């Protein structure tokens, strides 16, 4: 035995640098070039922002109202993207938080006459946070990690049950929901649908987008990347996997709540569908279509799906849902990473979390 060890040491000291790279520098360089090369994401983000900023200048009033609705739905899509695209939690009931907040603020406005932006938006956000904490706590915080299918069915059931509950509850207006919600106000100013509401919603979308961007590029974002790639592995590093999931789920619920309250006041009424499976599925489609795991993908998905449905329903009154369905299928079959993957490479989509920035900082001075 001792001899064997000595022999080992001897061979080790003889051979200083062992060639271990099966992939020589030639094979590695494209990856490196891609990492060091042009970033596509900021360009796409910038373009989308510019288009969104100048859009109302070219739109008729009724189209501005439509565009505002799309902006709010894009905000809602962000919430699902965070939960599914970044943390790998299959939430099929995201509308539960969207609709609960919508109903909550509608009741505040109807029964208590509270319409101040400074009260209703925080209230809606809080409702989203609370419901998602409750549901997330129940679905995700068990002794053992919950399976994807358990979470998917749990959230789906939650959303469906809420829809049924709202339909049968007289206080919530039953099938008809709550109509004629007064507009949000700031002092004596009423925020009604139109360009002002559009820019207001766009501002909120931009702020939430930047916050999400900050979050997913932080070290927390790295933990999320580990979570969605290999949950068991990172548990063995000492990550509290269930806690991570519950936190992201709650953040997603919070954003959905904010979107729901904006939506309720923009439309001027809430109805049971807003809680239900249809909207929950719709938001899944936005994100899959645009590209999950990229924030801008969620926004683009919402904009394109809503835009195309709008145009199709205008021009092909009878068959537009079929055309839309086929279109969605094609993208999901041939571009599983969504439309964004036409311009965005895998490496940039996943991103880097530590080194690149550090080196950039060092190189700057």
């Amino acid at each position: 035995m001792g001899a064997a060890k000595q022999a080992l040491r001897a061979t080790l000291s003889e051979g200083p640098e062992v060639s271990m790279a099966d992939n020589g520098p030639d094979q590695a360089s494209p990856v490196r070039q891609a990492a060091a090369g042009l970033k596509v994401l900021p360009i796409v983000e910038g373009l989308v922002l510019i288009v969104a900023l100048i859009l109302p200048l070219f739109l008729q009033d009724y189209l501005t109202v439509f565009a505002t609705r799309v902006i709010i739905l894009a905000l809602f899509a962000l919430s699902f993207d965070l939960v599914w695209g970044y943390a790998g939690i299959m939430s099929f009931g995201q509308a539960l938080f969207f609709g609960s907040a919508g109903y909550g603020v509608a009741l505040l406005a109807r029964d208590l006459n509270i319409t101040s932006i400074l009260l209703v938006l925080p209230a809606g956000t809080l409702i989203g946070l609370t419901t998602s904490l409750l549901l997330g706590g129940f679905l995700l915080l068990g002794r053992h990690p919950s399976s994807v299918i358990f979470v998917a069915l749990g959230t789906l059931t939650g959303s469906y049950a809420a829809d049924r509950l709202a339909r049968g509850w007289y206080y919530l207006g039953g099938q008809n929901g709550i109509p004629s919600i007064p507009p949000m106000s700031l002092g004596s100013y009423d925020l009604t649908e139109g360009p002002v509401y559009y820019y207001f919603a766009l501002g909120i979308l931009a702020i939430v987008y930047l916050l999400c961007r900050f979050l997913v590029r932080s070290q927390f974002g790295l933990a999320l990347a580990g979570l969605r790639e290999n949950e068991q592995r990172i548990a063995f590093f000492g990550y509290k996997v269930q806690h991570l999931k519950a936190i992201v789920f709650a953040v997603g619920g919070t954003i959905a709540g904010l979107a729901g309250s904006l939506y309720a006041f923009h439309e001027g009424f809430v109805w049971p569908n807003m809680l239900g499976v249809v909207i929950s599925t719709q938001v899944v489609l936005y994100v899959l279509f645009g590209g999950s795991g990229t924030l801008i993908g969620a926004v683009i998905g919402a904009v394109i799906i809503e835009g195309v449905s709008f145009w199709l329903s205008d021009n092909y009154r009878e068959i537009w849902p079929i055309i839309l369905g086929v279109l969605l299928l094609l993208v999901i079959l041939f571009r599983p990473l969504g439309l964004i993957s036409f311009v965005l490479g895998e490496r940039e989509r996943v991103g880097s979390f530590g080194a690149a920035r550090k080196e950039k900082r060092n190189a700057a001075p």
Partner: protein
Amino acid sequence: MPLLEATDIGKVFGKLTALDGAALTVGDNEFHGLIGPNGSGKSTLMKCVAGAEMPTRGKVSFVNRDITALSPTERARAGMSLKFQITSVLPTLTLYDNILLALQAQSSLFDLVFSRTRGVLHDHVMMMLSQFRLADRAHDAAAALSHGQQQWLEIAMALAGKPRLLLLDEPTGGMSLEERRVTGELLQPIKQHCSLVIVEHDLDFIRDICDRLTVLDQGRVLASGTVAEIQANRNVQEIYLRRA
């Protein structure tokens, strides 16, 4: 008190008894090999120690603490680290981020959200990468590495959190002879601060780097002792070490 002491471990899967009173004792700074024929329960014992499987009976204590009922996360936080048999580096992340992910596991939520430990951990990440000769590929995706290099990256990740005990399940599986030799070389320095349990088929490899061995057969301990003692043990010799 030894660092790790697993006593009378039993594990039953349905009708199959994988472990029947197996035991494992590992001291500080000791490299301990776990050997035995296929189906002898090596990997199962390893999993029971790591918390990937819960034993049906028996007790596992680690650093003077009963950890039998603790989850893998809690064991990791107590200073135990596991390298899986199947390579499970995160292929889409860069090597750098793979190591950072392992290192930051114990950072608080606040530190993670505001990336407060990113700067502090940088030197440590680069040190781990150079220790395993991967520094020049820090910014490549882990998927671009060769199989052997992925195994090294995985060992580096398992070591990143400065564990007291590292469990390696077949670290040289699928490696070339040369890569095996280098793996042995890479593991030697960690003895200063860490004990090691290795499950491995390559007996030469085990003999070269381990201090003590435990031989399992049909879920029980056949023999346990220093490498010399095990080599001298007639039963073991006949069955396992003849070819070596």
